[in-house]
């Protein structure tokens, strides 16, 4: 994953708000993970349109915190390894 990549959820993976669980969950074939706030805020922005840099900038602006780059990158690598997201290269 590089700064210019535009990550998106892979086919068959769905991000969804679950009121009963009061959280976002990631649904995939025969499984589900309940996401914490950070993970869901990042994944909600993985729309295949925004680049990694734009996602980081958006998160920093929304939550008024600087220096999120490394955390976001770390999570995106993890999510890629899990097969949740793929990167569209620019």
């Amino acid at each position: 994953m590089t700064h210019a990549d535009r990550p998106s959820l892979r086919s068959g993976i769905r991000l969804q708000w679950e009121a009963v669980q009061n959280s976002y969950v990631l649904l995939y074939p025969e499984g589900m993970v309940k996401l914490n706030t950070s993970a869901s805020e990042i994944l909600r922005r993985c729309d295949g349109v925004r680049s990694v840099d734009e996602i980081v900038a958006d998160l920093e602006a929304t939550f008024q915190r600087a220096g999120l780059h490394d955390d976001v990158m770390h999570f995106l690598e993890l999510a890629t390894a899990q097969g949740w997201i793929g990167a569209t290269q620019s």
Partner: protein
Amino acid sequence: MSTAHPYLPDASSSVGPPLWLLLELTYRCPLQCVFCYNPVDFASVENELTTQEWLRVLQESRALGSVQLGLSGGEPLVRDDVEEITAEAHRLGYYTNLITSGVGLSRERLTELKRAGLDHIQLSFQDSTREMNDFLSHTRTFELKRRCAEWIKSSGYQMVLNCVIHRLNIDHLETIIDMAARMGADYLELANTQYYSWAHLNREHLLPSRAQLERAEQTMRQWRERLKGKMRIFFVVPDYYEQRPKRCANGWGTTLMTVAPDGTALPCHTAKMLPGLSFPNVREHGMRDIWFDSEGFNRFRGQGWMKEPCASCEERDKDLGGCRCQAYLLAHDAGATDPVCAKSPHHHVVLAAVERAQQPRAPEAPLVFRRKESSRALAQRPLPTR
């Protein structure tokens, strides 16, 4: 960014939602697999729920928090309303998984299911060759399954193949994995048969030897390495070769709710075999009452029901005493420790079965295929006694 956890469990209730809803739409199935986990007396179940009744189950369970949906059977595609059920499930926000042998699927039907919002298909094979697949399922279905795999792939679905593993096909693991890789599968599930229902009847034919299992694990590891990044392989060892039991459906009444074809709601798809327990029917009760208040769902919830050696065992939180059906089948007591556990006073029953499996032998009793005629005969047989 908020670091608070806004989703701590509700202190007023320790019972979470039935996140997994499994609808066994029918026990009808063109296949006659010798390891089927449907009840051996499936043929006496005839009054399947109607489409409208299934839709009501979907609506009420979704309100409870169910989100992963399995459409299974039998062969679910023998019903002509799977499309309608899928469409409603999709509308309600379920992630829909169709678990099928492929019999009843066509390119047109797959297009229709996809349009209805089907998220995922799991396709089963019985072996890697036409001869063995067709022998184990007692049907000529191998070529059809191959075509189904192509349709699934070309429709843009991730392809998950499932092959139940046992003594009669475990030595073909190499060709089974090779077949899956050639078909372009994304995931291959190689789940060893667990011994319930028809597989329990046929256990002497199906339980692999230790040497077979070790060879299989070695083969699987080599292929896992070779196919890294292309295909994931899951391999599940038979419980009989473990020292500790597995949780019963992730914990009785914690996660899974199964609805049998006649509307019986169950904490797992084999629980109906347990004597002295009444399970509610969705025709008579709402899903909320069933999940939270019924005797059947509460009987083995938590740990209050446990006896020794479970009651004082330091591992009881981890495995919750293991599988209730296995306890019943092997110790004739649904409240006993799962005899798979080396601490169980009935563990010798498992060891004896494993010991017999090391002998090269042909069991005297014939293989029993999952046929209506056999099922009717088995329904007459007395319950096992202590």
